[in-house]
């Protein structure tokens, strides 16, 4: 420590300086640190991972389609990020509590969130849908980075309960600039809390390249807070499973927080409202298309004879069912009753809300509108 601490030459923009297990051609490569964590992952499991990624992709495409057709106000595409979402969620225990941002649909899929619950929020019917305690996933966070502190607090609660769960904070490369994310690392490190930070570095925060948030790799930030980290190929689902198992094991065994930077790429626009042609080259897309998270798994499975038409058809059928359910949940859905505006502001009776609700109900009555009072 008495030395001048000069950051190594690594660059945040070097997307090849990562640990991986499946390269972009689908070839299995060795990694000393990651290999031990996936010793049990056989072909059947890999097919399962593939299926969940494929479902995530279809779910995502359906979200975009529903938005284009006017059924959703907005959609935040996840295309290209299926491996980190599915792989890390898959590596957790069912009762580990995950705190995602708005783009982490793959982890919700893995946790069994119902098709309708992927569209209700973007449809505009509700601010959140599924029961977070049923699936152990908090409702997606929109305020960039805020959920990282919630995950740490939850982990502090686990420590107090003596539970053997962990909490997981998911966020993006842009979020790494927020004070909250850094404070989350401070609290987690000080208390040695069982939390894993997963930064999905998809190279962009809307129009801003990662180099504006960090010159040095984001994974390099955690050790300075006393938190071990790993920088992995976020498009390699095996590496994602392995890294998450390493991190979760570290956290679960009482050694405190761990950090994963998953280097991936946002293939689509930031949201359906965004126009990425204003700020990025299509060359980039070609580069990353060749590194697709699904393609490499398919190639690997084919190379070991575990990917055939029957499997593909089964996956497609699952996805068809899933997306059909999404669609039917939202197409032709009745608008919410007006007085729902007043529901759940408080958990206990509140004179102010009661008065306003009653006044508004009387006002609606004047129009013959049924407020839909509970």
């Amino acid at each position, binding site marked *: 420590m008495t030395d001048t601490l000069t950051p190594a030459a690594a660059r945040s923009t070097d997307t090849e300086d990562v640990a991986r297990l499946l390269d972009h051609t689908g070839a299995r490569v060795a990694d000393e640190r990651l290999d031990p964590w996936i010793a049990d992952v056989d072909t059947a499991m890999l097919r399962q991972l593939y299926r969940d990624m494929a479902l995530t992709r279809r779910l995502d495409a359906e979200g975009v389609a529903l938005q284009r057709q006017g059924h959703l*106000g*907005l959609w935040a595409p996840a295309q290209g990020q299926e491996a980190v979402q599915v792989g890390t969620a898959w590596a957790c225990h069912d009762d580990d509590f995950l705190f995602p941002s708005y783009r982490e649909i793959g982890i919700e899929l893995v946790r069994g969130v119902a098709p309708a619950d992927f569209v209700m*929020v*973007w*449809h*505009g*019917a*509700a*601010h959140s849908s599924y029961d977070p305690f049923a699936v152990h996933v908090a409702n997606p966070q*929109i*305020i*960039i980075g805020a959920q990282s502190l919630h995950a740490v607090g939850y982990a502090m609660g686990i420590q107090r309960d003596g539970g053997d769960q962990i909490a997981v904070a998911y966020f993006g490369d*842009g*979020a790494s*600039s*927020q*004070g*909250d994310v850094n404070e989350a690392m401070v609290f987690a490190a000080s208390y040695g809390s069982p939390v894993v930070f997963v930064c999905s570095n998809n190279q962009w*925060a*809307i*129009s*801003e390249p990662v180099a*504006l*948030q960090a010159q040095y790799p984001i994974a390099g930030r955690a050790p300075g807070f006393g938190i071990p980290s790993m920088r992995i190929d976020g498009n390699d689902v095996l590496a994602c499973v392995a890294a998450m198992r390493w991190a979760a094991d570290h956290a679960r065994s009482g050694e405190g927080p761990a950090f994963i930077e998953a280097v991936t790429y946002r293939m689509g626009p930031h949201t359906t*409202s*965004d*126009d990425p042609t*204003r*700020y990025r080259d299509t060359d980039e897309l070609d580069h990353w298309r060749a590194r697709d998270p699904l393609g490499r798994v398919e190639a690997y499975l084919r190379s070991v004879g575990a990917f055939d038409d029957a499997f593909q058809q089964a996956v497609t059928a699952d996805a068809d069912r899933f997306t059909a359910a999404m669609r039917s949940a939202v197409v032709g859905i009745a*608008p*919410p009753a*007006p*007085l*729902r*505006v*007043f529901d759940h*502001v408080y958990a206990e009776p509140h004179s*102010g*809300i009661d008065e*306003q609700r009653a*006044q*508004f109900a*009387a*006002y609606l*009555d*004047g*129009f013959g509108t049924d407020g839909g009072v509970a």
Partner: protein
Amino acid sequence: MTQLTMGKALTAGLRRALADDDKVLIMGEDIGALGGVFRITDGLQAEFGPRRVLDTPLAESGIVGTAVGLAFRGFRPVVEIQFDGFVYPAFDQIVSQVAKLHYRTQGQVRMPLTIRIPWAGGVGAAEHHSESPEAYFVHTAGLRVVACSNPQDAYTMLRQAIACDDPVIFLEPKRLYHAKGGVELDGDIADAAPLGLANIVRPGSDVTVLTYGAQVTTALDAALAAEDEGISLEVIDLRSLSPVDYGTIAASVRRTGRVVVTHEASREGGVAAELIASVTEKCFHFLEAAPVRVTGHDVPYPPAKLEQYHLPDLDRILDAVDRVLGRPNSMSEVSA
């Protein structure tokens, strides 16, 4: 006179400010190549370069805090907060630094910051994208708070805000970004009405309707509808929420004796409360009826499919007008 949308008028105002004063800088998330999520800074980075129009890291406290430092160095930063709901991480820097530094240093350090906020609801957006935080800033001594309601004001008031040596919270109603109007681009801001003045956008004699931002349009619609029933509404666009132009307002209320205040923000502790308290103090003996508020409910901003029941629309304004006029209204039974 050029026909421009409010969005383009704001762009023109920024361009003009950048051209007129080397010390003006624009900073915020995605304001460079993208031109901002609402395209208000469209083309400005290409024109003035990334030293004057700069994309910032994703951290609002950082944006405002570094803008404070730039002001220490003599710059006049214009900050864009991407959406209303993302201003809260910067709240400490705004309340404890931006608002207080001139006072703290007995005038030695000036804070000529303009904080632009695409603001309020009515656009079917996701949570945190339709907030009306103006009351927080109005209650904060040391800040000026203004809201534009048409392209000409957008252009002129933005230039005035940037030229002002005090920090200005500049509220841009999102749902009017595409509304068009004539804009005189060549005027000298010294010749325009000062930043603090209200504007009687429609004269009338029966009821004074106080409002600002996009609600001005709604209030004007209500005035048209009221006219059909023979009721004459005087609609005043506050333009400046802090300080408020009580000269114009009090003169109107003394004539009409009746006041309706409408805004999108929730009611409890909102700007309407301040207006009513002040108007009551200043015009008590002229008031024929209790002033009435028509505001968002005291709930977090609801999901998009419910916002029509949250935002005060034409009918709710007319119901309030009926109330101050003692005509039958939704509360007739309650008050009887």
